[in-house]
């Protein structure tokens, strides 16, 4: 079947099998490998992207379901050469080690901050509770999101 999906502002039309999962559509057909294909069972959250501005685990949605919709992936976080404050926060606070879970963490954190610009630590932990990180123990990820909340312009060294 033919699907037309707007990904990061560009419309892509492709012939796909209806059983194709969105994560494989993004990675294998569009070459957008920033979103990671992890557990395959909607547990780990490494594949989180936005579908019509709502985060979704892209291993648990069909590309066909995204037809006519808007997808945003981690590749779209930085704009005009400027990192998103969430990305800068992960740099400042050492929010990643191996980096596998990072795209899902950052897309979920951006969504949280768009809805709640100043979340408490408990709110950050709650919204990230469906994502797994095997390196950091989550502490630095939470700090990274807090950093982004305190630096909405994203510049390092800027005082809150």
């Amino acid at each position, binding site marked *: *079947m033919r699907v037309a999906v707007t990904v990061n502002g560009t419309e892509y039309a492709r012939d796909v*099998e*209806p*059983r194709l*999962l969105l994560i494989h559509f993004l990675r294998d057909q569009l070459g957008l490998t920033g979103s990671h294909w992890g557990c*395959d*069972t*909607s*547990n780990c*959250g490494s594949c*989180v992207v936005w579908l019509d501005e*709502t*985060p*979704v*685990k892209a291993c*648990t*949605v*069909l590309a*066909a*379901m995204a*037809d006519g919709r808007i997808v945003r992936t981690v590749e779209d976080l930085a704009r005009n050469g400027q990192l998103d404050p969430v990305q800068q926060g992960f740099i400042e606070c050492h929010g990643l080690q191996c980096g596998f879970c990072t795209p899902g963490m950052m897309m*979920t954190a951006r969504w949280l901050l768009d809805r709640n610009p100043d979340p408490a630590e408990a709110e950050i932990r*709650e*919204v990230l*509770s*469906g*994502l797994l990180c095997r390196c950091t123990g989550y502490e630095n990820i939470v700090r990274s999101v807090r950093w982004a909340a305190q630096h909405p312009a994203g510049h390092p060294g800027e005082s809150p």
Partner: protein
Amino acid sequence: MQVPSHVEYERATSVEHALALLGRPDHRVLAGGHSLIPMMKLRLAQPGVLVDINGLAELAFIKEHSGQLRIGALARHADLLDSAAAGQHFPIFHDAERVVADPIVRLWGTVGGSLCQADPSEDLSAVFAAVRATAVIRGQDGDREVPVREFHLGPYETVIGPGELLAEIRVPIIPGTGSAYEKVARRVGDWSVAAAGAVLQLHKHTIKEAGIGLTAVAAEHFVAAEAEDFLRGKPATEENFEKAAKIAAEHCQPIPDQRGPEDYKRHLVAELTTRALRRAAGRAAGRAAQRAKT
């Protein structure tokens, strides 16, 4: 790599369109997909054609109407958690929705989908059983109403037939009630080891009606009927809650598995039922006090 087997895809443009498609052989509803797609990956489900109903906005509502809370089948778990009307009349929904899957999954998984999935460990099935909800099932000849306590035929089986679609769930709003849900799971997003939901309708300190829903412990229709019978007409005391919880624990049939042995699950049913009844009674009393003030 987990990939569903070959399947065709149709997008329903209206409820009527969906019903026409679902009348054909081997067509299956695709809503949030967060139960169906994992089952398709494991080849536990192999539908021929998926009928995507995500575009049917007329099924995505939560509203108070004519003394009922009405929940469209396509309302997302996150919508129910955010619903002030649901929280005001039935705190049990908010208790439960905080522990259904995880926050990202809750943005997509639907209330109707959870009920239709009929997983024996599903949380909302116990909640809707406790509040004595009614399922509105739409077919090409119109609607039929089925009490949620008669909705499930067994694991992964419901009364919904070919050419039918769960349209909404209606919950009667009864003054003087309090409700609560208590769940034990091994980690965030996991199924219950056991969980209990309770609804109490109090008249002063007497229990006029009780609803107790259990999940993951093979209670028939997710209901602890014998415990409800015990409570009806009795004073709302800690002693009676403990006795009812003990009855509930005796009458369910938990299956030992990797989540725990049978005696542990029965212990959980007793403890969680007691806690849910206690909190439900507290909330009912709190609402009565609030009403007396205003």
